[in-house]
């Protein structure tokens, strides 16, 4: 692995990322829009739908698991328990940020170079396939990760600003930190690895986008499982999940290198 090559790719990719209005939007404004939307939904649910939600079996199961995990929540009135439950899910919603950025940025990373002809010139340099793919994945994953962390900070600020500051202590727990600083990086790297791999295999931009859908479905599934309380992600479970995804990300890099057919790219893309 050549750090010099990876750094070279990172700097070039970032220069391209922030000179493209669409990509710059995806990395800067989209995360904030997601956070804004989530807070709005929580506020609407808390304000107008709390009674109905509390009587639903699915939320009762989830609340029960929340109280078991954070006993202090049990002292709160039912509606506030629901609010804490909804706020506690946000860290999983934040996983959408790196996956969505990966969908829009990573999936085009190789296809665009194939179309412009720069990939052939790049493959004529001594760059290794592994460095190229890792560089491209990290070039997207790092800003996506930073955007996610900033969004998490913005989320807590807004929670405090709307007068729910007293509940932050129930939300910002070991679970919150493990999700944000272990699970999110693992998901980000895996998403970008899959995006780059898909991009290297796709014949055009549309094909790359179709492949990208594969990335986002598991994250939706994870959010659904969490909301319905089917599985309550304890710190240990998050740790195991992050480790598993990290291993999958590593394996996906190896698979991506094997799937990256330099010859086919050179011969078929003119």
């Amino acid at each position, binding site marked *: 692995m050549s750090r010099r090559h990876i750094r070279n790719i990172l*700097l*070039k990719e970032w220069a391209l990322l922030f000179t493209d209005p669409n990509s710059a939007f995806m990395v800067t404004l989209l995360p904030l829009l997601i956070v804004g939307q989530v807070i709005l939904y929580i506020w609407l649910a808390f304000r107008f739908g709390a009674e109905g939600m509390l009587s639903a079996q699915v939320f009762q199961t989830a609340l029960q698991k929340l109280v078991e995990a954070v006993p202090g929540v049990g002292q709160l009135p039912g509606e506030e328990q629901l609010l804490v439950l909804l706020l506690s899910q946000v860290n999983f919603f934040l996983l959408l940020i790196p996956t969505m950025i990966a969908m829009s940025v990573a999936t085009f990373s190789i296809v665009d170079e194939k179309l412009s*002809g720069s990939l*052939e010139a790049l493959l004529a340099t001594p760059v*290794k396939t592994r460095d190229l793919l890792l560089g491209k994945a990290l070039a997207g994953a790092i800003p996506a990760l930073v955007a996610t962390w900033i969004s998490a900070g913005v989320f807590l600020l807004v929670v405090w600003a709307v007068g729910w500051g007293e509940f932050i202590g129930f939300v910002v727990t070991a679970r919150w930190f493990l999700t944000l600083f272990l699970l999110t990086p693992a998901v980000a790297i895996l998403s970008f690895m899959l995006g780059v791999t898909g991009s290297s295999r796709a014949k055009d931009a549309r094909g790359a986008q179709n492949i990208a859908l594969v990335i986002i479905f598991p994250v939706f599934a994870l959010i659904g499982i969490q909301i319905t309380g089917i599985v309550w992600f304890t710190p240990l479970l998050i740790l195991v999940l992050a480790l598993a995804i990290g291993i999958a990300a590593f394996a996906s890099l190896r698979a991506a290198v094997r799937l990256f057919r330099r010859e086919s790219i050179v011969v078929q893309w003119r």
Partner: protein
Amino acid sequence: MLLKRSRQEVQASMAIIETSGLSRHFGKTAAVEDLTLTVEAGEILGFLGPNGAGKTTTIRMLAGMIAPTKGYAVVAGHRTDRDVEQLHEVVGILTETPGFYSRLSAKRNLEYFAGFYSSIESPSKQVEKYLRLIGLWERCNDRVGTFSKGMKHRLALVRALVHEPKVLFLDEPTAGLDPKAGAEVREMIHRLGREGHTIFLSTHNLNEAEILCNRIAVIHSRLLALDTPEQLRRRFFRRQIIVQLEVLDAKLAEVVKKLPFVQEAREEENQLILELTDSERNRPELVQAIVEAGGRVISVTEKQYPLEEVYLRLVHEESGNES
């Protein structure tokens, strides 16, 4: 006028490209078949052939971008199918499409590509040197997207050159360029040739090949011919001397035809077109004989057959063999 390095100058060095039975098949189609050739260090080899003749495939094999299905090639001491990374350090390739990042500046683009070569300590200094050389330094901070096609081609040539490779592969470097841009690129290739770079030049432009190249290879999947432009001509056309006279009469023509070293002679207006036993040595005697017979010589030149005729005959012969 462009002056090439002489064949003797080139031959004083050693082989830098060697192929043996190099072949590449795509499915049942043979793109390149049994290519065996040698290119000397410092030589400019023109690589000609019709569309689909295997020129680009050959260049890609020699540059280590695709592997041969049979045979092998050694370029600058590296097997092209085994030592790919080391090979990429010492060869440069100008691909058919310039392929740049249009939103980045010329300087940033070149620094990026230069950053992959271990031989370049400071990509920015190296890029500056070459951008100045091709006269694009003033526009180094402009986005490549704003450049003309000719400027992009020159930039692509710099990209291929920036790590000062031992061998430079140029795949149709002037294709699609206007005459001025084409001439600029040709001038740059010529300059590189004079500096001693080994250049493998694939082109459809026969005039360009003749001006720039020491030798010319013609392929149509197989190697049809490999020689200097002059020797290729000799393969199909005998040397003919054209004597332009002030007045050509029958008596004078008879005198010339009877000269012992004149093998063939025909008349065209006030010209005599002759084949001599030794077209170099016999010329003074020929002129002397004409003058003594009362003829007034305006000029003595050698008939030049365009390389295109040679090329067309070679390709036509090959097509005939195929059918």
